[in-house]
């Protein structure tokens, strides 16, 4: 009933090794880890591979399958083509011990450096009171099974050993976020710690960690970005803050607001020097020309509208009830950047001279 499938598995140790070919029987409903076990029971009894629960709950059997970091027990053979050769290699970011087993002690060191939960001094065991909505945000991060797939995929350390000492990695950013959001944790500098000690600033939100997470934790959106935003929030740097708003959710504009303009220039007649820049630029030729001509003072502008309110008729002011991470945009959450040029009330200082 089984079919023969081609596997290439990396065999070797710290001194080197290479991919070895195996032809293995595969039955219906099996996963990659089953195939590894069959190899161990037959032609390669000393093939080293970590595993424990075989149910996607312990995070032991992390490996790279066709180059993608995955759990061996959660990768069904039915997701591959019949004639596809499946390549299995150890996690690339950590030193190899033997075959598919790597030295993941980096992660345990970072775990030890992250300050532990600080319990409230005035509460006896049994007196802790927390609301479900308040614990849920931390609970999402506590789903982590420590498979370290997010750590191995993170390009900050994947091919850069030199960054390892200064960078804790996504797993420990969400640990910091989890404690930051813990309703009763008494330590108040989790964000600053993440920035100054864990190397949060190295992360440029490519979301690879979120993509590989077998527990589907929104590492970037719910953990890293809120930490980053609140870090910059506290630093009172509005330009960086605006930048982080603009570049959220992958909306990278094609042209940037250059540094000659303060953000205020987008809305007001603030004086500005230097060369012309079309704020919130566009490659639409027509609006380009329009922008060149400056402001059409007679155009129709949208009337101010009341903000969206929730069921109780209130603004969604608290982050707990708000439908997205972090604070709402001061421009209104219905405004997306870049704005179309025709909506900009902007007059170029030299435009009158030109016309």
């Amino acid at each position, binding site marked *: 009933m089984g079919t023969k499938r081609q596997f290439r598995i990396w065999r070797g*140790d710290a001194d080197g090794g290479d991919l070895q070919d195996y032809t293995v029987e595969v039955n*219906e*409903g*099996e*996963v990659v880890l*089953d195939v590894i076990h069959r190899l*161990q*029971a037959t032609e390669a*009894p*000393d093939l*080293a*591979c*970590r*595993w*424990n*629960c*075989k*149910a*996607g*709950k*312990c*995070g*032991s059997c992390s490996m790279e399958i066709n180059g993608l970091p995955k759990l061996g*027990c*959660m990768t*069904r053979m*039915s997701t591959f083509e019949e004639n596809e050769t499946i390549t299995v290699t150890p996690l690339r970011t950590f030193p190899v*011990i*033997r075959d598919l*087993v790597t030295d*993941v002690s980096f992660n*345990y060191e970072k*775990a*030890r450096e*992250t*300050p*532990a*939960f600080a*319990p409230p001094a005035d*509460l006896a*065991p*049994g007196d*802790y*009171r*927390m*609301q*479900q909505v308040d*614990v849920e945000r931390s*609970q999402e991060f*506590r*789903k*982590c*099974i*420590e498979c370290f797939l997010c750590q191995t995929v993170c390009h900050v350390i994947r091919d850069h050993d030199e960054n390892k000492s200064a960078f804790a990695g996504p797993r420990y950013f969400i640990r910091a976020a989890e*404690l930051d959001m*813990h309703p009763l*944790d008494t330590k108040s500098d989790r964000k600053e710690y993440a920035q100054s000690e864990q190397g949060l600033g190295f992360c440029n939100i490519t979301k690879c960690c979120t993509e590989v997470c*077998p*527990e*589907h934790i929104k590492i970037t959106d719910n953990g890293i970005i809120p930490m980053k935003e609140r870090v910059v929030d506290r630093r009172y740097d509005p330009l960086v803050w605006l930048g982080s708003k603009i570049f959220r959710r992958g909306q990278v504009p094609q042209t940037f607001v250059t540094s000659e303009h303060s953000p205020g220039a987008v809305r007001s007649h603030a004086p500005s020097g230097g060369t012309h820049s079309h704020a919130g630029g566009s490659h639409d030729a027509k609006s380009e020309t329009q922008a060149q001509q400056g402001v059409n003072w007679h155009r129709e502008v949208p009337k101010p509208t009341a903000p969206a309110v929730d069921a109780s008729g209130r603004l969604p002011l608290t982050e707990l009830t708000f439908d997205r991470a972090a604070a709402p945009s001061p421009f209104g959450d219905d405004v997306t950047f870049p704005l179309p040029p025709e909506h900009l009330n902007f007059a170029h200082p030299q435009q009158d001279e030109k016309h």
Partner: protein
Amino acid sequence: MTTTTTRIERHHYDVVVIGAGGAGLRAAIEARLAGKKTAIISKSLFGKAHTVMAEGGAAAAMGNVNSRDNWQVHFRDTMRGGKFLNNFRMAELHAKEAPQRIWELETYGALFDRTKDGKISQRNFGGHEYPRLAHVGDRTGLEMIRTLQQKIVSLQQEDRRTHGSYDARIRVFDETTITELMLDGDRIAGAFGYYRESGEFILFEAPAVVLATGGVGRSYKVTSNSWEYTGDGHALALRAGATLINMEFLQFHPTGMVWPPSVKGILVTESVRGDGGILKNSEGKRFMFDYVPDVFRKQYAETEEEADRWYTDPDNNRRPPELLPRDEVARAINSEVKAGRGTPAGGVYLDIASRLPAEEIRRRLPSMHHQFKGLADVDITKEPMEVGPTCHYVMGGIEVDPDSGAAYGSVRGLFAAGEVTGGMHGSNRLGGNSLSDLLVFGKRAGGHASTYVDQLAARPRVAVSMVETAVETALAPLQRDTGENPYTLQQDLQAVMGDLVGIIRRENELEDALGRLAELRERVAKVSASGGRRYNPGWHLALDLRNMLVVSECTAKAALERRESRGGHTREDYPTMDPQWRRINLVCSLEGDTVRLDRKPLPKMRTELISLFDRAELAKYLTDEELAEFDALAAADAKAAAAATAADAAGAGAAEKENR
């Protein structure tokens, strides 16, 4: 000769904890808090222990959801679940101390699901009279192991501040396996093992060892247990002179996945049934109503209508029979399948899809939904699951002193906690009682091991000859090249245990099993492993086989001896419970190389505890002789009560004041 050529790393500790699951970590925390230099030995990476697999929750009578719950009710449920074979003192301590142990976890940073008034939420579970299980969705075990792991890290951070090193007073040796305990006369002197990573040997010199190695499930073909569950602690204890009890009692969890084949055995949490899931056979019949045994008749619904009302109104309706204790449900499924009413893959259907809206299923059972989608491509919100019994837990284990966790037998300085111990759960464990068991007895074992160390006048010493023998035994499979492959031997052992010492047992099959185990013993003694010492799973399995084999022998011998059916031990040839057998524990010990079996009377329950039960209920379990004794007690109590009222009436107000 060996020692001169073999490098052995040596460490000195006060307490060595073998096993890094819930019980081991809790014991280690306690030993460290008592100021002892503590080592934790973990067979896997730190934080991967089998505790992560526990889904439902931790039972503790906190009374957050139903205020009528208290330790007495919990104690009663536990004894009932174990069919009165439990060590009553352990069940009592467990019921009394579980709430404190759970609350303590919150101070370590655990985040349980909450009730409306902000307390820890508690859910219903098979065999528990009130909602009692503290839980986090269906990943409670993960929360527990992570919390304990992080508490250990926080202690290490404390030590770093005061002593300059994280490892100053508590150190985790991950991916390290202990193969032998070292003795000095009858005293524990240390433990010997190897690092999986390098294959190098390591010797711990320590006057106290806490065993917390979990169970024995890997000896079975269909099991929810991971590779680590090879009965190491059971075997180490036996070889050190300790005794095992109740080894015939294995819990087969009623609902393991039966399809696809690769995940056969993996658990479907009982909460699926607690939240409304029902069991149906291939004819679509909800069959559990046909399997309610007499002892439970009063507490369980007789009609589907009543059962369905219970989910919303538990106070005025009896519970659905799907929530009977695990052994009953497992046997019922087994009977249905044997009668030809099973699914194509040899199980029955567990249906939640037609009982709850999809959104609600995803919210209440997130990791079940995730697991089925990921592992089997089955959407539990749309179709029923195929489930059947899977080897899940061993009730039997090291015979310990209930209060201190110190092992009985001839050895001193050996403590044990968690699944590796016996007695607490009697013949059958209630769901949710294992997580609280780990915490309650983990703490006790760690604390008492520390006290034992304090009381020692001199440290026991490890003899060189013992280390030499241990090294030779460990290296032997690598030095032979004529023996069999360890994987073949393991499969053969699993076949013997699964087919002949499985869920339903018969005398001739058990005798056959003992014969085959003896043959296997010869073959295991000659096992050979290819490859070197660095991270060689074949070699590791070859060493584990020895432990699996001796523990399997204990199970088979005890199963043959106990001529009745009770909890996790079902004899087709003796299908009922026998009150005479309730008074007997079967105790295994090692005499040279052979397993010796003795009968030992069960300790007698204290008066105030046995009075918690109805006479009618006790009548189902106790012998006539014991019942007569109970009646005499009750009569004496009534007399004393009457006398006390009379004394009060005589106006002894002053005396009462004095008493206070």
